[in-house]
């Protein structure tokens, strides 16, 4: 057996004996996900055990260096781990903005001290992170942000307001873009800083969305003390780090186009709900709509696979994250429009058992934000036009 076959076998054996039975079932709702953090209440003992065992091996962050507690796996090994977990239907042990976003930025731009301080607790799921990027007057034009950090000698004092802070009320630490040089050109006076959400003067306040849920907060910063050693990269060079981080965010949001409702395809859901006549879905217009969506979704999923394989082989066109983000989120919106049509009036019921308390309609409304958060679809198209196509 080649090394890689040995690795696959060992991985499968380890997962087989360490992944608890209940962690091998599809999540019944988003509430089943494990986000970790200081205030996390595990939904079950199995959820806790699964996180601890995976974190122990560093497999919550498989490709991060083992010196910081990561798995130290090669891209090929990490792909095998993903495939074996998928085969077993194993749940993700930890969903984390630490792993998806600030961690990769720290690995690329952070000081050695910052890596040693922050990466191990991210991998173990002990600290949950949130992102302080957008402001009321800086959305698509993110570089226009005005919240500032004033240099007080040995520390900064931050003031201002952030918005769309994902789970800001549940997070332990924030990575935050602040203006550190008010006189510089807008992209040049920004720094990326880290601070504890318990710091005096930090106040997150949930925002209720059209979906009824509140996954985002507005976060007020009122004379917040930020330590000088908590700047990622150089002072006033935060925009470079921020752009790198946004690439990771785009990749993450784009992936959501692939998420499935349980394990049922749209075709299966519609067959049950609308019924078949002579083997064809009784609503032929709906049948056409579903088939076209599924064809696009599978083509998109092949593309995600190709982009991964190209990057592994050192090929690829770069900046594909903008395309994946744009296409993936538009697909997800289409999926839920179709799901709403499949559900008919049942899925318009906001409360009660018939619609599982409006699960489909609430998720449908939430998807409208997919093509806004992390850079709108229009911003992604701008990035493609300028960076890839060279249109000025």
């Amino acid at each position, binding site marked *: 057996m080649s090394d890689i076959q040995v690795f696959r076998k060992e991985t499968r054996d380890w997962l087989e004996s360490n992944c608890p039975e209940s962690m091998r079932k599809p999540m019944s709702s988003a509430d089943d996900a494990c986000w970790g953090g200081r205030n996390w209440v595990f939904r079950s003992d199995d959820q806790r055990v699964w996180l601890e065992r995976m974190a122990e091996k560093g497999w919550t962050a498989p490709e991060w260096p083992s010196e910081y507690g990561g798995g130290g796996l090669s891209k090929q090994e990490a792909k095998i781990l993903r495939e074996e977990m998928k085969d077993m239907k194993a749940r993700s042990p930890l969903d984390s903005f630490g792993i998806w976003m600030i961690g990769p930025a720290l690995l690329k731009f952070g000081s050695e001290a910052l890596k040693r301080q922050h990466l191990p607790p991210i991998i173990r799921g002990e600290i949950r992170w949130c992102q302080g990027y957008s402001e009321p007057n800086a959305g698509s034009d993110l570089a226009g942000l005005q919240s500032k950090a004033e240099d007080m000698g040995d520390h900064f004092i931050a003031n201002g307001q952030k918005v769309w802070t994902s789970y800001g009320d549940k997070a332990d630490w924030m990575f935050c873009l602040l203006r550190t040089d008010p006189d510089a050109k807008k992209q040049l006076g920004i720094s990326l800083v880290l601070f504890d959400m318990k710091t005096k003067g930090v106040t997150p306040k949930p925002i209720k969305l059209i979906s009824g849920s509140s996954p985002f907060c507005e976060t007020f910063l009122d004379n917040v003390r930020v330590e000088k050693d908590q700047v990622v990269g150089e002072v006033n060079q935060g925009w470079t780090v921020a752009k790198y981080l946004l690439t990771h965010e785009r990749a993450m949001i784009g992936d959501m186009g692939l998420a499935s409702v349980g394990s049922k*395809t749209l075709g299966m859901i519609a067959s049950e709900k609308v019924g078949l006549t002579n083997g064809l879905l009784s609503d032929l217009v709906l049948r056409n709509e579903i088939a076209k969506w599924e064809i696009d979704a599978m083509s998109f999923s*092949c593309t995600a*696979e190709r982009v991964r394989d190209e990057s592994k082989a050192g090929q690829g066109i770069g900046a594909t994250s903008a395309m994946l983000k744009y296409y993936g989120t538009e697909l997800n919106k289409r999926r839920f429009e179709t799901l709403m049509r499949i559900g008919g009036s049942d899925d318009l019921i906001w409360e009660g058992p018939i619609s599982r308390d409006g699960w489909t309609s609430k998720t449908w409304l939430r998807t409208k934000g997919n093509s806004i958060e992390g850079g709108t679809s229009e911003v992604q198209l701008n990035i493609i036009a300028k960076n890839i196509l060279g*249109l000025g």
Partner: protein
Amino acid sequence: MALILTDEQQMLKESAKGFLAEHAPVKEVRNQRDADSETGYDRNLWPKMVEMGWGAILVPEEFGGLEFGNVGMAQITEETGRTLTASPLLSNAIISVSLIKEIGNQNQKSMLLPKIASGELMMTLAIDETSHHNPERVSMIASENGERFILNGTKRFVIDGSTADKLIVVARTNQDSHDKSGITLFIVDKELSGISVERTKMVDGRNSTFISFNDVVVEKEDILGEKHKGFEPLSNVLDIANVHLAAELLGICQETFDRTLQYLKQRKQFGSLIGSFQALQHRAANWWSEIEICKSVVLKALQAFDENDARSSFLASIAKAKLCEIAELSTNEAIQMHGGIGMTDEYEIGFFIKRARPAQMLFGDHNYHVNKFASKCGY
């Protein structure tokens, strides 16, 4: 298998690009059309392609072939989409070879495959009978008469039917059935009495043919595969043909995009390059994204056939459906973004839409494959 080309496949693509640029650039489309070509393609081109080994790519080694697989072959079909090159590659070296390879007996394989590989023999498939592809509804009759069969009926949209030496004819041997069962394939010499061929010039300048069979007598040993059981292998080869058509359409999509992008960077209006207008930038960016999606699904489907993946038929319909949609987008956007000059015969961009539509229609268009996909999914 990683979803990327191997070095050998990449090299074949490069050599195809070089060959076609030299021997069959887009201006040849105009030359063939204006010369009112009898064949619809340059007769001198096919021997050169055979010299490149292209006739032998799908032929097994024991029959004088290269056995280089569908991914390899499609690097050529994709490039012929970029140059709009007409040739018997699809009818002869892909469809006929694949059918004979799959279900031919030893005698048929050793008689036919080496000759196709070496360029001595041209074959094509005669299947469609109505204006819409529907391989299950065959009404052409092959009535059994002792050791012989008598063929009666008419085939249409037979590509390269005017230059083929032999036809693979799809006929019904069981007159009581009306679906997939009772369909048989025959290898028929085009010179047999009772066969008449009518050439039709198509919108892309290529030739297609109506072929009528009037009491054409064929022998039992002319059956390709098994009597009554022709549908399944035929269907598999139609899937392969569709993936290669998808690859050709991918070439068309990329070439129209590249040419249009170039134009957006040259053409000035209102004192600015039109590529600086956001209305066009967003359409171009969306178009580019769709082509990236297309590249992935075509390669995935091709690999599935080379690996005998159980999902290959499924992926063939996904690839053809998707590429039909995006070829339509590409050829339409190309004309619109070129503006008035895109409508002129003098400018080449309009040639792409004229080739794209027949390639889309051949062996099932977008709607056909969306329907087939949904049925395969069980709804």
